[in-house]
């Protein structure tokens, strides 16, 4: 009997412990970190192409998908393009998404401890060919006889 009671006590202790752990793991940024949330500059567009919470967790998947489509298949839609992110989120101060600690990408990545290597190759500032401008399907001057074709 004494043994059963001690099992029960142990079980109870475990349950309490698990409960506390679960509380700690709850996705509350303030409670989890004690580190101040990054203060992100507002993007230039009206709103993001996806829900902010969704983007926070899934932007990398979207970018990966898009990069494969663009590079390998030549699909040049702009909705999930890295260039479009940069155009919208480049800082008013530095003109970049990753040149100072406060810039959009770096601010969040350093908070999250993520070190993606996008910027080894990709420009951190918008270029002269805006993706929005590029989105207009051009009638190709490469095809002089394209008059009768779609």
């Amino acid at each position, binding site marked *: 009997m004494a043994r059963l009671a001690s099992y029960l006590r142990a079980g109870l202790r475990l349950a309490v412990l698990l409960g506390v752990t679960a509380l700690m793991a709850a996705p509350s940024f303030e409670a989890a970190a004690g580190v101040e949330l990054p203060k992100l500059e507002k993007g230039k567009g009206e709103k993001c192409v996806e829900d902010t919470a969704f983007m926070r967790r899934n932007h990398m998947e979207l970018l990966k998908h898009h990069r494969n489509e663009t590079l*390998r298949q030549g*699909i040049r839609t702009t909705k999930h393009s890295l260039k479009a992110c940069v155009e919208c989120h480049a800082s008013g101060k530095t003109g970049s998404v990753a040149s100072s600690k406060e810039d959009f990408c770096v601010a969040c990545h350093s908070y999250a401890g993520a070190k993606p290597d996008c910027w*080894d190759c*990709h420009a951190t500032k918008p270029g002269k060919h805006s993706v929005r401008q590029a989105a207009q*399907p051009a009638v190709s001057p490469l095809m002089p006889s394209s008059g009768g074709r779609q």
Partner: protein
Amino acid sequence: MSDSMNSKLEDRRHFLKTSAVVAGVTLGPGVLFFGVAQSRAPEEGASSNQRWGMLIDTTKCGDGCSDCVTACNTENGLTGHTGPQDSQWIRKVDIKDLRTGYVQSLPMLCQHCENAPCVDVCPTGASMKRADGIVLVDRHSCIGCRYCMMACPYKARSFVHEPLTDQNPEVPRGKGCVESCTFCVQRVDRGDKPACVEACDTKGHKAMLFGDLKDPESEVSKALKSSDSVEVRADLALHTGVRYQGI
């Protein structure tokens, strides 16, 4: 550049020249013309109904002119330096017939081979050919092993040795990856000509024609059909997208 380097290049030029002459005789199956080219919307993607190609008329190529090289460097963010560790996507090559002393000047770039050896040897699938024949390196999966550089018969590829900054947003490039001419894919996809071709036109030489080899109505197809042209090293049967006249 050291003397031995010079003489190596010299050798290579003669090699290319000789083989081009052989190519003229043993010219393999030509380019097939069929299908109708389409200008496409952004969501459409590259299609095998097209094959981008180029015809370079060396008799029109200006001696001492390197506007195509400069335009490429500007468009793609290359320094223009020509040291052993610098990227060169297109270079002017002088070839000399040793028997007659006749010297010609021509631009050499990735030939966008149909049977690309660089694609065959790549262990990661990074070196790839798009449906429309443009050969690219997917830097996301390139491990920098440089097999493709060894495999390319045209010495068309370069390795990036140092970290880069301020890249052209449309042309991401970085340390540790191999790269080569992309036919200015960013321009072609929005309907513009490659930067080198545009520069050659602007200069008034018009030595480079670019277009869809599968569209019988394209300027390049018509030119190919109406006059003789060769692949460099046609003996390798790589069916290059770039062809030359006058060599």
